[in-house]
């Protein structure tokens, strides 16, 4: 295995495509979370977020790896 830095800093104007997973980390798990009208109208059940969580879960590592991570 080679060591070293695999650095690709991307500027905003860079045309290269940003990895989708890096975006999902931030746009699904980050950003200011507001209760939009669409979620409010679901009678207190946050279904949109539930759905988002399902997507997040589907892109996350397996449960085993997540466990080993959190027990660090």
């Amino acid at each position: 295995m080679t060591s070293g830095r695999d650095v690709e800093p991307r500027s905003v104007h860079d045309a290269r495509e940003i990895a989708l997973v890096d975006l999902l980390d931030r746009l699904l798990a980050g950003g200011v979370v507001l209760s939009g009208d669409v979620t409010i109208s679901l009678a207190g059940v946050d279904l949109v977020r539930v759905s988002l969580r399902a997507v997040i879960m589907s892109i996350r590592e397996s449960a085993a790896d997540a466990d080993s991570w959190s027990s660090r």
Partner: protein
Amino acid sequence: MVETLSYAYGILRADADVPRDLAGIAGAALRLVTSGDLAALVSTVDAEEFGERGLRENLEDMRWLERTVRAHSRVVDAVAACAPVAPLALATVYFSDERLRTVLEERASAFEAVLELITGRTEWGVKAYADPSTAENGPADREAPYRPGQAYLGKLRQRREVRAQAESEALQQAEGMHHALSGLAHASLLHPPQNRELAGYRGLMVLNGAYLVDDSRADEFASAVDDLASKSSARIELTGPWPPYSFATLADSRPGRAP
């Protein structure tokens, strides 16, 4: 029944300079919805696509998700290049600009606090990958086998132990890196390791950190990443600059979000 909805991308100060002619989701024109000193970046989206039922279905569709994520990100990137912007989570949707304006008004102080936190700072991502399997072939067999079966089991056990040790060392090293980088950052947090298939990497992602760094210390931070990479057996990847997604959070408005 409304036919269109207001999709909000991010919050910024009302007097911020925003690039003209920006297009949002599905090419729709962007506008600013202002309330006092604050403004939200908004475009009109289709009510069927972004309404309750539409969102529920679409969020499970990876192609729709990617298209929308990229459109959202493009808008926030373009604006973040010109002014501090607190990005909103994906799919923050209102029935009307007026409804959104009310939220801006109600949460004004929380937004001010977030904008204060992120002004003059940029988010950077640092990921580290270890490959514990390379350690398996490291040490030679300890002793000559007596019986083939026993030797085989012994080898398996030894391999497992070596691998477990390599993993634990890699994680420890990652913790050291995170600690060092956090020392240079105003704030930091760990994202869970990314899905191997989706992210396309081999081995173990031992670090997926986000760091909110003062712009004046950006070079120092990049050098520190360089330095850590040269000393580590792990492969290190620096991403960014990012709009501060990982740090633009309102502590009291994230119900049900596991840490």
